[in-house]
Structures are given as C-alpha cells and as structure tokens.
C-alpha cells in the first residue's frame, strides 16, 4: 500500500511535466488548421447541421458548411457518425483550486482564487474527457461575501497563466443560507463562533459591506474630482482591498455569483441589490428558484443550478428537477453546473435531464451547458456556440451528447487538441510499464532495515466540492 502511494508521488513528481505535455500534445504538434469533415454539428445558435464541416484556423472557427477545404498541413478529423458541439462550460467549479474557502471572516472579497491555481490537478484531464473546456472557478460558500472567481480554459499540460480566460468578466462569490450559518459553528476546540448565524445576520452582513463600499467609493470619487479640478496637494484615500471589489460591483464592472437555496433568501438578495443599485449576475444552485422565477427574471439575474440533486440538506429538500424548465420558461438565462469534479465529467447528461423533466427543447437544453453559461460569465462573444469567428473550443462525441451511451472522442480548445481518446488508449500500455518500473525504482523498495519510507499525504484531496453536494455514505 505504502509503496503504491510512494509510487504515485514519484509518478506525479517525475512525470508530471512530460506526462502533461504528451497529454495536451506538444504545441508544435498542433497545426494551425484543423478540418472536421462530415459531422453532425450542434451549432446551438443556428440549429443542428447534418453532414457538415467545421474549419478551424489559428484557434478560431473559420468556417462551418459543406465541402470546406484546408491547407496541406491541416489536421483532418473524420466526423462521419460523430457529433460536434461547443466545448462545455461549467459555471460552478472548484477544480484546480488548492484551497476553496477562506472562512474566517464573513466578508472575504479581498481573496482571489487566481492565487491558488494548480494546473496539474488530474481532475482537469478527466473533465476534458467529458467535453468540458471552460470553468468558472468559484470561492467556497463559507461567507456571505466570499472571494473573487477565475474563469479558465482547461489547457491541461500548460502553466496556470495560460489557463486564464482573457476578457472574461471579473466576478465574486456570495453565499446565503446554511453553509454561511454553519461556518459559524466550528467544532474546533477554543475557536470562537463567527457572525452571522442566521439569515437575518446574512442580510445585515451584506448590507453593512455595501454601505461601507458606497462611502468608500464616495471618498475616492471626491478625491478624483478634486484632483481633476487641479487640486494637487491632496493625499489619496487609503486603498481598501476588501471594499474595492464591492465598488466594482456597484459600478457594474464585476459579476456577482450568489450561492443560494431557498426562495426567501433569493428575494432578500434581489431586494438588497435593487436597493444598492447593482445586479446579481447569477444565482448559483438556486434550487428553489422555481418558486420565485418571475422575481429572478424581473431582476435580470441568471440561474446556474443542479439538474436533479435534492434532499442532501434541509434547504435542498424542496428542490425539484423541473427547476431548469420553469426558470427557462420564465425568461431566465439558465445553466446547469457541476460544483463537483466528478459531476463535471458528465454535464451532457445533466443538461439532457431538462428534456426528461420539464420538456425543454433540445436547443434549450444544449444551451444550459454552452451559450447560457457563456452569457453568465460575459464570454458569449468568444465561446458557447459554433459560429465563424468564435474560439475553436469543441467537443467531438461518438453519438449525440444527450445519449447516455455517448462518449467524447476529442476535445479541442483554441484549435489545439487537449483530449483524444485514441491517444489516451494508445498511451496506456506505456504508462503501465512506467508505473512498474517506478515500483522497482530504488526509492520505492522497502528499506533493508529501519522503517519503510513514509508515505506523504495527498497534496490536496481530489474531487473537492463546495460541500454543497452530499456525496452519500461511502461503503
């Protein structure tokens, strides 16, 4: 057992880089042109096109149509019998975050998920194998106002800096309800409880923060206008890293992604946001959204929800799988997210559930994991549909992605292949050999005398979630 763990460590240390590179394909291997021929193309915005080609040039979609041609060096993918859709966008993820919750304060708008990105998280590769290309990495739900988010493309095998989605709207995590309250009930001996502990306190915490932010903004506005009037002897106000993101929210420059469950807390946040003059971009989870769909629509907020998770805690007991359909029909932009490295691998199934429960059309259901989350993240001009000029982020399936029997063959981001099932299969024999060799390697052999090498713990647990989903009792 210990040897296996040690082996794992060695595999991850010794092989992380070369493995990553082969998995992602060396950039040199990626030609500037790719032509997918004769596939069924789920464009999202222009219907489903049979026997259609998709031409990719320099990372962008250069053509969608019949009989397209490419240069001599182009990669040709035979799309016969295959289905091409835009890369899936997960609007609620915690993948590649080394830590998720800064839970010690009720307002942690000064912390950034972009500071803790781990580009070697193996779950990223597993998500690519489910056709996912873009993630909204959110802070956890321990506090009414949480940390700042990061929108990334899953460029597995490359440095973290290359993951960042340029031009995505900056965002922040808010959270309401049980998680926020529970975070005040720490079990650690000697630890003090944290305010707030009720939904009343949650409202007050957010109100207080925005009241301070409004004053802070006024202070800066007054300073700037005085400077503009030529007053050069003023001291600038002290910067406040906690309040700066809240000012950006008030100015419409930062999107609020608010974790919530029950109807009353949704209405609370809408009314608070209306009062302070800002918008909630998405309600996350929003499992009782169907009870207040018209209010969410009137505010102009989106909803990013689970397909059918329910009853894992009290505030999820009234969740119903018709939520996506009711909200969509009320005019809300709806996405279905994972909040789980495991579930992220099968968001196609989660979206199809909106046809099973609630009778959304295929196009409406496809939008739940493509164009709608793109809109919710402010990246709809770049991704979320297959249109000329958009980023070449695509998932190629061996069957319609809404079939339970479907499997991803190839996942492409900016025109480069980041997952290919055939390559993955062909590498397995080598990996097995490599593992066997590592197990025989000197550091992994039991010591002749004394204790065996101490197995280190995992760098971080795999499959982390924002504790919203109860995983069930593991047998």
């Amino acid at each position, binding site marked *: *057992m*210990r040897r*296996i763990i040690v082996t*794992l460590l060695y*595999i*991850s240390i010794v092989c992380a880089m070369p493995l990553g590179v082969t998995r992602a394909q060396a950039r040199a291997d990626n030609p500037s042109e790719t032509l997918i021929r004769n596939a069924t193309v789920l464009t999202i915005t222009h219907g489903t096109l049979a026997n259609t080609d998709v031409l990719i040039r320099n990372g962008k979609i250069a053509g969608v149509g019949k009989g397209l041609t490419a240069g001599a060096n182009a990669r040709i993918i035979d799309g016969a019998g295959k289905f091409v859709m835009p890369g899936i966008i997960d609007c609620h993820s915690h993948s590649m975050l080394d830590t998720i919750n800064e839970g010690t304060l009720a307002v942690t708008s000064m912390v950034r998920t972009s500071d803790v990105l781990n580009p070697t998280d*193996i*779950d990223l*590769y*597993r998500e690519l*194998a489910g056709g996912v290309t873009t993630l909204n990495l959110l802070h956890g739900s321990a506090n009414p106002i949480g940390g700042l988010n990061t929108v990334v493309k899953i460029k597995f095998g490359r440095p973290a800096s290359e993951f960042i989605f340029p031009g995505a709207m900056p965002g922040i995590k808010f959270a309401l309800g*049980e998680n926020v309250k529970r975070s005040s009930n*720490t079990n*650690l001996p000697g630890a003090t409880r944290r305010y707030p502990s009720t939904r009343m306190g949650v409202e007050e915490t957010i109100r207080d923060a925005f009241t301070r932010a409004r004053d802070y903004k006024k202070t800066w506005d007054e300073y700037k206008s005085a400077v503009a009037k030529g007053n050069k002897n003023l001291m600038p106000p002290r910067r406040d890293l906690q309040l700066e993101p809240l000012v950006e929210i008030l100015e419409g420059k930062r999107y609020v992604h608010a974790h919530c469950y029950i109807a009353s807390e949704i209405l609370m946040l809408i009314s608070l946001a209306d009062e302070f003059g800002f918008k909630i971009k998405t309600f996350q989870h929003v499992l009782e959204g*169907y*009870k207040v*769909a*018209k209010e969410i629509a009137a505010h102009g907020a989106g909803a990013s929800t689970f397909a*059918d*998770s*329910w*009853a*894992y*805690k*009290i505030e999820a*007991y*009234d969740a*119903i*799988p*018709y939520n996506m359909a*009711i909200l969509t029909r009320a005019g809300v932009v709806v996405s279905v997210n994972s909040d789980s490295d*495991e579930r992220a691998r*099968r968001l196609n*199934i989660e979206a*199809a*559930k909106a*046809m*099973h*429960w*609630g009778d959304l059309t295929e196009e409406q259901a496809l939008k739940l994991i493509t164009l709608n989350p793109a809109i919710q993240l402010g990246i709809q001009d770049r991704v979320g549909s297959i249109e000329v000029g958009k980023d070449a982020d695509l998932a190629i399936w061996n069957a319609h992605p*809404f*079939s*339970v*029997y*479907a*499997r991803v063959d190839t996942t492409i981001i900016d025109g480069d292949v980041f997952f290919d099932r055939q390559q*993955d299969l062909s590498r*397995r024999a080598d*990996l097995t050999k490599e*593992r066997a060799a590592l197990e025989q390697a000197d550091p992994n052999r039991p010591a002749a005398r004394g204790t065996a090498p101490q*197995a280190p*713990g995992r760098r971080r*647990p*795999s499959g982390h979630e924002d*504790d919203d989903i*109860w995983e*069930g*009792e*593991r*047998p």
Partner: protein
Amino acid sequence: MKEHELETKRLGETVMQRLVQHVAIGIGLLLMVTSAIGQQILNPTTQQGVLPARGTFIIRNARIVTVSGADIENGSVVIRDGKIEAVGTSVSAPSGAQVIEGRGLSVYPGMIDAGTSMGLVEIPQGANGTVDTSEVGEFNPNARAIVAVSPHSAHIGVTRVEGITSAVSAPTGGLISGQATLINLLGTSPKEMAVVPNAALMINYPRLGGGGGGGFGGFQQQFNLADALTNSERQLEQIRKMLRDGEAYGRAQDAYAKDNSLPRPNHDVVLEALVPYVRGLQPVMFRANREAEIRGAIRFAEEMKLKAIIVGGDDAWKIASFLKEKNVPVIFTGIFQLPSREDDPYDVMYEAPAKLQQAGVRFAISSGDPGAEVRNLPLYAGMASAFGLSKADALKAVTLYPAQILNVGDRLGSIEVGKMANIVVTDGDLLEIRTKVRYLFIDGRPVALTSRHTDLNDAFKNRK
C-alpha cells in the same frame, strides 16, 4: 325528372352522410370507452395511505423487453392479481381486463437498486432526526432495516416514477451494520413493501488505512501502515469472534431443542440474528472497495462458510478472475466515482462493469446512494454501456442480475410468466436520459406517476 334524380341523389348523399356520421359517432364512442378504460389506468389513486388495487390488465401492441429472453417486437403482457400471467405475440385480453394500448411503447421489468438506504434517511445533513442508518456501536446484527424503513419517505415516490421498482435498503454503521431489506417501492407499511424482509447481513469489511478521512475542516491524521494493518486485523478478529458466537449459539439452541436435559441456553437477540447468516442460508454483504479488502472479505467468507456478496467493489475488476473463481458476485456502486488514483485511466470506473462481465463475474450496477440519487440508476447502467458493456448486459445489470444475486431471480428482474408484476412502460430505451415512463405497475398494482416533485412542479409552474 332531372330535379327528381337530383333530389334522390341528394337524399342518397344525406343517407351516406348520416351513415358516416353514425360510424363516426360509433368510433367516437369506442374511443371514449377505450380512453375511459385508459383513464382508469392513467389515474391510479394518488391518495397517500391507499394502496392501489390489483386487477387484470393487458398491455398490448407494445415492444416487450423481457430481459430473460428475446425482445418481442409486437406483443402483449397480461397482469393479473399481482403476477405476470401471459407474455407473447398471440395473447388475447382476458375478459374484464383493463387495456393499455402500447403502440410505440416499450415494456420492461422494473429496475432494482441493490445498494441503497431507501426509507432509512430523508435528509442526511442537518436533520439528524431523519437519519436511521447507523446504530451506536460496532456490532448490531439485530438492527433490521425493515423495522425502520419509512413507506412515506418522499424518496420512494420520487424514485419509483423513474422505473425503479425495488431496492435493497441497508443500514450502514459500525462493522456489522445490521440486516438489509429488499423492498418494493410501494406500500403503506413496511410489511406491504417487503419482498425479502431480512435480505442480507451487512458487514463493513475493515478498511486498510483506518476510518474515514478528515471532512470539512477536519484534521488530517498521519497515516501509519503498520498501525492500520494491526487495527484492521483486530477489527476482523472481532467480527470473526462475533460470528463464531452466533454459530455456537445456534448449535446450543438446536442441541437444547433436541435434548431438554441439557442446560438451557439463554436467548440473545443479537446472536439469534446471526444464525441464518453464519449457516450460509442467507447472504452476507461485505462493503469492500480496495483490492486487498475485497480479497480479504472473500477469504474471510470462505473461512467462515458465508454466502458472500461484495458491495462497492471499486477495485473488483482488478481481481475479476479471483471473483469468478470463488463465484462471489459484486454489487458495483462506483460508476460515478472519480478514479481513486491519479494515474488510473480516466474511465477506469466507467469500464469496470464491462471488465467484470468479460471475466464472467456475476455483478449488478447500483447507485450506492442512500436515496436521492437512486432515481438515476438507469444512467449508471447506461454509462457502463458507453464504456464497453453491451446494452443488453447494462439493462440486466439493473434488473435480472441484482434479482439473481439477491436470490429472487425467480420472482423479480424479468418479464416472465409467474413473476411478480413489477413492470415499467416507457416511450423508449429504459436507460436513455430522455426516455419517460408512461405506466408503472408494482406488485401488479397500477401506480400513479406522481411524487413530491411532480406535486411541487404542479404547484409552482404556473405562478405568474
């Protein structure tokens, strides 16, 4: 003259029209009658506390997926008094049978999830009062799920309307958790639900590496292999002693029954509970996931002469030939779990059932979920099929295979004459996501396709 002819012609037309009208009315009436019959079936009682009545039904002109035999492209199924009375292409409707016109529909046996805690827990987090899965202490063979399973749990209705008609509901705590029950997901009392009241003894095979990991905000303990091994061996020894005590208790009671001159052994409900299991009369389900744990459980069962079933079985595919050799079945719950090791193939869990199948291991696919996710059981099976398992075997893995593993293959799991009428009528492939259930029978009773979730949908979908 001409006018007369015209008149006659007109008269003729009128007669014809009238005739057509009559026929139309006749057809209309027929349709009304048919739909009235249909109405009865379409709307079985939704009243909580009322068990829908058994009766005689025929589903005709449907595709019958028998599971045990070949599909029947256009056939009928007759249900009478709770049983499947007839299946085939030339089955005629018994008199008084309510008719379900099955054109375009498919008929399947109800699905079975052999790894749940259905009805024992309503809300696992933040509502301890609704949790009845884990008793205090390590050894509770006398804790019986059938005693505590709630027929009125919202999970039951939500699950069955998706075509899952039976489930094993099991306690989960300690080392010997208690006894699982096999229930139908319909009834107003545990007794009405029970298919096998005490279906298996649940044992959590001692984990190498100790108990669960640190949870939300928990502390990470330094892992010490030597300590962990000793600890799991000690736990196994405790289980062994407990089972031996049960065996000895059974022998003592038998001996006393034959010869009253012997000292009278006191009754003991805990040891009493073990007797059918230690005698190999009923199965023992070992929760075991890692290779060493599964091997350990099988060796232990062999030593103790237990009838073993592995539940969990994450690594079972790695020792498939061993499982085959020992003829130990696996209830695999790992489909939608992340691979446990970083260098595992990304699809290692998706592929596991196909590997078990290829090796000839008896297996079933289960959600392994206490309740809320059980309704997705068809998707667990479908995913296994996307990664190598044949569609036919994927279907068997949630119908006939679990029935056989639970030793109720003669009563559940397929559409065969004489079996319990647990039947699902769908508008497509049972395992596909978009497929919908149109009619549902459990124990020959027509079941309304309503649940807590359809009720809430109805209550709010038109809110303006």
